[in-house]
């Protein structure tokens, strides 16, 4: 058992770094409890690229680009940058879309769920419970071979991921050119830490989490599979580090009501995060991990990321996301359809196997 703790110590350190950075980025200008949130950042990015028209959600978050580029750099230095693909592309796009929808209904990705908890937001408890339940369900379905999508890993032309890296690097450069991309003047999109600080934080986190394979849903999954607490310690580290920073900066406010960027519809929070947890297990990682994997040259993860961007754009265009007023009917329908779709796929495959 001591070996298990020892094996996870760097992952735990990455989790602590993530929690520390997430809380500090909120202090430095990102929205409260949203120092790091992949789904929110992707909605911002989709807006900055003109994929939706919500003027409050348009900004290329340098953190997002930093995660990808930091991961790519670390992978290249460690000789782990390999162009590879496994599954067919269309279902991966769908998985990315569902992760964006589930996160939007909860108002945040799994990383933000942890940061919300660390800020004292008790409404996030339902999301965390839903996330764990979703991961557990995903393990059950995968374990019985019902959703083992994709075949063996195949090599792919290295020019493809290399081109993506170059494109993201160009985008990162454009983020520093005033007026090159659409930028919110009001709302959450207008709240951001200094761009250079955000980019550096993203690069460091991207590199650290590439080396340690940190993943929120992956940690929960491993805790279930190994029946041990050690893997989940990384998630605890995220929360603990963020709590420390929040306590130190006066940003810790325990409560159920009036929490920033949260709603009180706990059932929909649980279902939204449940969908994310379920899909993340199938896709091989939480939204954050997908970006890190994409940076390593994994084209499956890159496709999931494209699906998340499209999902983020549609979430904004169709009004699927939750707000402080609650979850709109369209968002509820989307989550239920997403869950039904994934479970239905599992059942039909089971019949086919039988």
């Amino acid at each position, binding site marked *: 058992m001591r070996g298990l703790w020892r094996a996870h110590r760097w992952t735990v350190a990455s989790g602590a770094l993530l929690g520390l950075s997430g809380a500090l980025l909120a*202090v430095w200008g990102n929205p*409260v409890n949203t120092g790091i949130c992949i789904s929110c950042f992707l909605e911002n990015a989709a807006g900055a690229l003109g994929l939706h028209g919500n003027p409050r959600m348009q900004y290329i978050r340098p953190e997002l680009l930093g995660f990808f580029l930091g991961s790519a750099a670390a992978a290249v230095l460690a000789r782990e940058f390999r162009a590879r693909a496994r599954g067919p592309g269309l279902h991966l796009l769908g998985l990315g879309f569902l992760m964006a929808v589930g996160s939007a209904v909860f108002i945040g990705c799994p990383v933000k769920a942890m940061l919300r908890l660390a800020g004292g937001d008790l409404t996030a408890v339902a999301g965390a419970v839903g996330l764990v339940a979703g991961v557990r369900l995903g393990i059950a379905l995968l374990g019985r071979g019902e959703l083992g999508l994709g075949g063996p890993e195949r090599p792919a032309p290295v020019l493809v991921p290399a081109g993506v890296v170059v494109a993201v690097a160009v985008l990162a450069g454009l983020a520093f050119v005033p007026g090159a991309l659409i930028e919110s003047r009001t709302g959450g999109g207008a709240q951001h830490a*200094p761009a250079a600080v955000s980019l550096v934080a993203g690069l460091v986190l991207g590199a650290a989490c590439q080396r340690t394979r940190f993943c929120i849903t992956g940690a929960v999954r491993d805790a279930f599979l190994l029946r041990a607490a050690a893997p989940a310690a990384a998630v605890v580290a995220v929360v603990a580090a963020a709590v420390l920073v929040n306590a130190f900066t006066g940003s810790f406010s325990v409560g159920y009501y009036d929490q920033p960027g949260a709603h009180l519809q706990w059932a929909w929070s649980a279902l939204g995060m449940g969908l994310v947890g379920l899909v993340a297990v199938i896709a091989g990682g939480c939204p954050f991990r997908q970006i890190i994997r994409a940076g390593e040259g994994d084209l499956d993860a890159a496709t999931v990321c494209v699906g998340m961007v499209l999902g983020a754009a549609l979430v904004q265009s169709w009004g699927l996301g939750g707000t402080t007023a609650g979850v709109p009917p369209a968002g509820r329908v989307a989550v239920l359809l997403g869950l039904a779709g994934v479970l239905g796929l599992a059942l039909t495959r089971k019949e086919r196997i039988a």
Partner: protein
Amino acid sequence: MRTRWLCLAAAAVLALAGCVGTRPPARVDVPPAVRTVDAHILYTDTTWKGDVRVVRPLIVTRTATLTILPGTRVFFDLPDLPAGAKPEPWLLVQGRLVATGTPEAPITFTSVSLRQNELEDMIEIRGAKEAHLRYCVFERGPWGLHIHDADVDVRSSVFRNSYGGVRFQGGRISLRGNRFEDNRIGIRCLNGAPVIEENAFVGNLTGIFFRQGVAGAVVRHNNFDDVEYDLKLGEAQTDDVDAESNWWAAAAKGGLADRIYDGADSEGLGRVRTDPVLAAPWGSEPKR
């Protein structure tokens, strides 16, 4: 007969002219030498002095302190809110705000266009480390101050000709020696225990509105002379409110009950305790 009609017509013209004359102008002029702030985030400590024009919502992050020197005139000149758009505070303070004017050189916050709507806020102080305001004037705007979960001390300031003066929720709020004049609502509070002392409420539609969850508030030594209600409780405000030792203009006319909206008007609401009332306006007699 003809003279009577002429007199009536003259009176009507005078009344109309009076109405037009007392209504605030649609826009005020901004001095040509004004400094325009085009940033939308302040990350570091910043000081404003002279004339400052704000043209887009501005955020003071937790790493920054905005200090406004005495005599500074801040002109909010933001584009109109598009129909259906979510309102944004014109100045969002998450760090620190220090706006301490003097009696001779107050700090003014003016909305360039007359924007007396209930949706927007001139300054929102949300989860901020601290905020101190002395001798400030808020005019022609929506709400002057909107405070969420922050400790804020406002003294000797004027809130006038706006939709509302100060609205807040949570935090430790202290409002002393201020004047709320000709607003729709002077103060609106949700879930808090504010200290409201030695203020003057004059000509507001409602002086103080406790919406809900106000317990342990201190309301004393204030002068009230409002239009509709001096103190009004919301439909979910079930706790009683102590408002002893205030001066009520309506009490002198025997109509104080009409200016208080509480459990006497709607069953289930808390009651406002006003006795003893001050016989003369606070400040008109030597303080004991």
